[in-house]
């Protein structure tokens, strides 16, 4: 993995960083690269309340905020920004304002690499809108000065339309940190991957391939 000056990660929800990117982040941290993680919302619209419920609509964001902090600390992120947008409303924000907010973040942090979602290929409207805002922000920067942009994509048509990911990081060396990050998002991961813990314990081969390899598509600006 190339050594970066500064890595900026931009995702809309607590736990977006955990599955696809936390190993890459942890590796950069280990390499001594400063990492800033900007998380737009607190996942206020999460649906897992538990059966019996362990929380409610109004308390969930408080839980997820603490989980986000714990996950960030598990992978060594020192600069965690919570931007205060609201879950499932990112796509309805003013496009220009949102892009400018991303641009001022990029200008401040001055990253050599930015990681976000691939707009149009990331399933959740907040994912696509966040990726699109980051792309618009970077497009405002003269081409020669732009940071690299690596995108996460997982829509059903992403490989068909984008081709295979051009970057695959094997993160086995920091898998323990990644698992700690995933587990930190307890309110989400316990239900979503009910049997994940069991499979991890048994080193389920399919699960290990999925956990240990993180894929990115380099965004190509026109």
């Amino acid at each position, binding site marked *: 993995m190339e050594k970066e000056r500064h890595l900026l990660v931009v995702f809309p929800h607590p736990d977006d960083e955990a599955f696809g990117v936390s190993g890459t982040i942890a590796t950069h941290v280990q390499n001594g690269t400063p990492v800033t993680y900007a998380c737009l919302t607190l996942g206020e*619209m999460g*649906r897992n*309340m538990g059966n019996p*419920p362990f929380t*409610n609509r109004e308390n969930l964001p408080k839980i997820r905020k603490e989980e986000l902090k714990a996950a960030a600390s598990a992978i060594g992120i020192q600069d965690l920004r919570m931007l205060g947008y609201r879950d499932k409303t990112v796509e309805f924000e003013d496009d220009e304002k949102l892009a400018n907010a991303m641009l001022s973040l990029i200008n401040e942090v001055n990253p050599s690499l930015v990681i976000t979602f691939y707009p149009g290929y990331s399933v959740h409207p907040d994912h696509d809108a966040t990726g699109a805002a980051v792309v618009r922000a970077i497009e405002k920067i003269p081409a020669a000065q732009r940071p690299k942009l690596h995108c996460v994509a997982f829509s059903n048509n992403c490989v068909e339309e984008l081709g295979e990911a051009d970057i695959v990081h094997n993160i086995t060396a920091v898998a323990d940190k990644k698992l700690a990050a995933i587990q930190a998002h307890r309110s989400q991961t316990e*239900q979503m991957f009910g049997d994940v813990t069991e499979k991890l314990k048994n080193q389920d081969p399919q699960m290990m391939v999925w956990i240990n390899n993180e894929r990115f598509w380099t965004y190509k600006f026109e």
Partner: protein
Amino acid sequence: MEPIKNHLQVQEAINRYANQDVYIHLETTNGAYASHHDQTFFSAGAYIRNALVRYEHGKITGTDPYRVGLKINLGWIYAEGLTHFEIDEEDRLLLAGHDNKGKLAVALEISTTPFE
């Protein structure tokens, strides 16, 4: 939250907020991934937070899951599929419908102060 077992408890709470300005949170959702996991699934939902209304009366009906309707000055608010309720520490009435996996599918909340 606890399962709605005694709907009179909820009815009493609904009555307490009647005839005064209240803030409403109402949402229905299938989750943002429903159509990703099942491409034949038609996902729909609606959301309103901090609608300021006044209802002259409200009613809980049905047998688990329940329905709640509020008759407001010029119209109606209702939610169906409600399974759980709570009067929280801020004295707000939180009603929600959870599926059998504990996933929220509908929420109707009433408060005398704006939701955060």
